[in-house]
């Protein structure tokens, strides 16, 4: 999978052979394949002449990967071959390009690549000169484009070759960056860039000091740290980004930059040790001292700073407060260094989650030799294995870093499913080592559900069910049996219920039931196992049962509109004559129920039915101010046992503009009411809907700045204003509705709800309120930034996501 040199290819092949692809194949099939493979290997793998660049590439990429090879030997041999072939342009270009990419794709290897360059420079100073010049140009490019992570890593590499730098080295650059940070902070620092830059500067310090003790004076760095400390600004939105809230939060909210700053100050007091970092150049110190030093090229500060808001990163861990400290404490420099480096590895390698997982499992290869416990040390064996040395468990450190992403607010860098998939791969690579870590992580999160942000709680459920779906749905459900006795609205009991619901959505009720202890059988009632929900007009204790069956037949047989209208009008008239309130609602409910029932077989079925009836549905939704909310209610009632499907249907009706976003929100918050707040599908409906609205507003906002004729800009402006107003109205309804539940202005729960449950429901309302307030505040802040940017240097660029329209949604009609 990974281009990591011939040595590993054989291993990988072996692994593939044992893998899923061949399972269950008849023996002679396998044999033939193997022979094919062997032949190919024989023919292609042993060329008589190997291109030196191919060899160099293999060796450089494999650096430090194997604990069986002494890394100093690899460094020496690469440096030697590099200086031997340096006259070839292909080697010079190839090597520099390779290590420039390597630095921003595999940050773990930066110190080792630095050691190669230092060694090669000692043999041939032209090597050091070219690398330095090329990296300086690259660094300037990243800086001008505001690509902060690549800038940070390229700077880290340059800091790591400090001992071949003459004069001030990177010190001037760090000073300039600190000045820039100061300017940004003085403007208020609302974009978050000043904090990001502080972090970039600070995290570079350990690498410089490790690479060239004395190269930059500790005094200079201490002053720099103090200067940056004076520039810290707290973003207004930060309090809403903490993963936990309330009095029982497992730890207080901690900002990553503040933690790093504090840790570096502590280090300054104790003499900057940075024991965690590898020092692969140490065996070569004598040679390096004699090597030619080069001047660090001048880097100029960018003239325009672009890019959107950078949100503060908040510390997150699933291993805090355990009996044995398996991850470094948040306030230590080790914690900051590891979390930064692992976090970047995860962030950069999203294009190959399997390679990423491999790096995470091998994390102990890339840091100081005794930095971690032996791999796969069982948790209860830690004291005897550690023997007073490091208790950091490599699996825990990596699992923690992945969870940090899943639980990052407002959003992690990549789609959540990437982190799910990476955890799956890590488990597949080292099941014995990782599964117990994951188990402790799950229990930790479960214990802290009562303090967890509601959005994160939903992410936890979503990950948990998805993860189990990749591993045969096995989990120690027995340990949660006592919690089944809790009230249905208790955060833990609700977690269990919703996790099971999610599992069923990925699988089917019977299968999931078979994986659960019998105590859980109430969670999967028989109604969930039915192929189709009941058509309520089959029963007699409902108004207009005969008409319901008639209408079903008419729609199913695609009867002319007039016939349908005649029947529906007759129902409304009958309801009116009986003196029933809101008489038209009976026919509306009946019509939508029929569509649900006709389309119950699959999503395509319901979509083709909606497509066919969309004019009538649109008209029904406009009959009264409550009509659309009632339609939402009808769908959700029909799918009461599988609300996830109901939520999907609602989402499609939204795309067709049959429903407005407001109607969906009003139904959840006002009609489904307090009892719906612990339900996963309720959160999903609100979250999906608000995000759609927000995305539309953002797209319209970015359209304003595009290069369009004036009248079109005016139209975009106007549409944007309308969308903004709609969005504001939506959030207002949400805030007011939830606010009334929270402060007890409206009693949550049905009559007879226990006092305890009422308190729990109030708690739910408060946590929903916090999460939705975060969404609203972030959008308002972003809009304010856009207005400012527009008034200044012109509108900033936005990611131009295609607008999602309903009419494109037509599915293929099935036979």
């Amino acid at each position, binding site marked *: 999978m990974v281009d990591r040199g011939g040595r590993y290819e054989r291993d990988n092949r072996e692994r593939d052979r044992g893998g899923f692809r061949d399972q269950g194949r008849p023996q002679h099939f396998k044999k033939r394949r193997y022979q094919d493979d062997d032949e190919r290997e024989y023919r292609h793998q042993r060329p008589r002449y190997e291109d030196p660049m191919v060899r160099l590439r293999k060796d450089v990429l494999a650096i430090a990967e194997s604990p069986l090879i002494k890394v100093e030997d690899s460094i020496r041999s690469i440096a030697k071959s590099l200086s031997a072939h340096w006259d070839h342009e292909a080697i010079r270009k190839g090597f520099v390009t390779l290590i420039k990419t390597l630095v921003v794709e595999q940050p773990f290897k930066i110190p080792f690549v630095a050691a190669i360059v230092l060694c090669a420079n000692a043999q041939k100073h032209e090597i050091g000169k070219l690398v330095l010049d090329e990296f300086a140009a690259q660094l300037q490019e990243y800086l001008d484009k505001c690509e902060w992570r690549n800038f940070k890593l390229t700077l880290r590499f340059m800091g790591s070759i400090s001992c071949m730098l003459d004069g001030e080295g990177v010190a001037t650059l760090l000073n300039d960056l600190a000045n820039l940070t100061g300017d940004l902070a003085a403007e208020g620092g609302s974009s978050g860039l000043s904090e990001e830059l502080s972090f970039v500067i600070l995290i570079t310090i350990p690498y410089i000091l490790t690479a060239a003790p004395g190269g930059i004076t500790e005094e200079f760095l201490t002053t720099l740290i103090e200067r940056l400390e004076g520039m810290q600004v707290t973003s207004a939105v930060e309090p809403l980004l903490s993963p936990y809230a309330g009095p029982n939060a497992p730890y207080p909210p901690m900002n990553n930059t503040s933690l790093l700053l504090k840790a570096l100050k502590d280090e300054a007091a104790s003499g900057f040790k940075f024991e965690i970092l590898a020092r692969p150049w140490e065996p070569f110190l004598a040679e390096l001292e004699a090597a030619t030093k080069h001047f660090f090229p001048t880097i100029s500060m960018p003239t325009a700073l672009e890019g959107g808001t950078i949100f503060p990163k908040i510390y997150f861990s699933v291993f805090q407060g355990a009996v044995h400290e398996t991850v470094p404490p948040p306030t230590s420099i080790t914690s900051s260094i590891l979390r930064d480096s692992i976090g970047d590895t995860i962030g950069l390698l999203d294009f190959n989650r399997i390679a990423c997982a491999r790096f995470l499992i091998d994390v102990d290869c890339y840091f100081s030799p005794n930095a971690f416990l032996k791999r796969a040390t069982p948790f209860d064996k830690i004291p005897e294995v550690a023997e007073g040395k490091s208790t950091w468990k490599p699996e825990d450190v990596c699992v923690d870093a992945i969870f940090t992403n899943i639980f990052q607010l407002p959003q992690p860098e990549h*789609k959540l499913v*990437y982190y799910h998939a990476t955890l799956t791969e890590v488990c597949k690579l080292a099941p014995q080592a990782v599964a117990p870590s994951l188990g402790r992580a799950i229990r930790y999160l479960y214990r802290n559900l009562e303090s967890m942000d509601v959005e994160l709680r939903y992410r936890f459920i979503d990950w948990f069910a998805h993860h189990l779906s990749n591993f045969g749905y096995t989990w120690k459900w027995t340990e949660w049996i006592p919690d089944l006795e809790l009230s249905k609205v208790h955060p833990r009991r609700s977690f269990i219920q919703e996790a099971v619901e999610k599992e069923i959505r990925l699988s089917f009720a019977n299968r999931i039931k078979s994986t659960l202890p019998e105590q859980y059988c109430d969670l999967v009632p028989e109604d969930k196992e039915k192929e189709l929900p009941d058509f309520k007009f089959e029963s007699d204790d409902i108004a207009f049962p005969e008409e319901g069956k008639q209408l079903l037949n008419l729609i199913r047989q695609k009867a002319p509109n007039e016939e349908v209208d005649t029947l529906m009008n007759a129902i409304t008239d009958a309801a009116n004559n009986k003196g029933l309130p809101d008489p038209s609602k009976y026919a509306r409910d009946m019509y939508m129920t029929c569509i649900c029932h006709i389309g119950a077989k699959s999503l395509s079925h319901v979509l083709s039915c909606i497509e066919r009836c969309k004019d009538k549905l649109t008209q029904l939704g406009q009959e009264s101010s409550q009509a659309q909310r009632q339609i939402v209610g009808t769908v959700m009632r029909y799918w009461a046992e599988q609300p996830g499907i109901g939520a999907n249907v609602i989402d499609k009706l939204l795309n067709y503009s049959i429903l407005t976003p407001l109607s969906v929100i009003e139904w959840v918050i006002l009609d489904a009411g307090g009892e719906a707040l612990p339900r996963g599908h309720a959160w999903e409906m609100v979250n999906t809907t608000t995000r759609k609205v927000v995305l539309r507003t953002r797209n319209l906002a970015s359209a304003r700045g595009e290069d369009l004729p004036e009248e079109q800009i005016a139209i975009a402006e106007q549409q944007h204003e309308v969308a903004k107003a709609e969005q504001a109205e939506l959030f207002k309804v949400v805030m007011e509705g939830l606010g009334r539940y929270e402060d007890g202005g409206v009693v949550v729960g049905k009559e007879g709800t226990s006092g305890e449950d009422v308190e729990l429901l109030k708690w739910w309302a408060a946590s929903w309120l916090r999460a939705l307030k975060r969404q609203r505040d972030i959008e308002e802040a972003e809009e304010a930034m856009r207005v400012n940017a527009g008034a200044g240097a012109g509108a900033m660029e936005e990611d131009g996501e295609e607008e999602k329209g309903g009419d494109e*949604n037509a599915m293929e009609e099935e036979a």
Partner: protein
Amino acid sequence: MSHHQQHQSTVERLDRPSTYYEKSSKRNRDDAANKEDPLKDATTLYVGNLSFYTTEEQIHELFSKCGEIKRLVMGLDRFAKTPCGFCFVEYYTHEDALDCMKYIGGTKLDERIVRTDLDPGFKEGRQYGRGKSGGQVRDEYREDYDAGRGGYGRSLQGGKEMGSEYD
């Protein structure tokens, strides 16, 4: 293909089309070199190795983790019109389709490893299996028993089904 050569990564990318597509377009390779890459903006994925029993709802639940799904077309047995173990998933954006290759391809759905491949786009008729007996070709001569895909390969299941198209 043009977008393959932006820069060479140090690690293989998972969001590249498989050799299936490259192979099938090899036939007209001469003009392929001049033509634009048909997968450059692809928003559709072919999804294979599904169980015959996997439903649209299950597919939707997993694949919507990479973005909103614009269209989902189930692969059907040409004769029986029942699912035959593949589907097309169409997203609104190319980015979502690439993410699906990276994050979902090779993971499990309904306890089977699913295979994803970028696809130039669904066309009417492609939802049907191309095997002799109506399903996918791979299920025709399969020698292993796969409960999720109708047991043994159909051609090996004895004379009963053979020739059933004459009924």
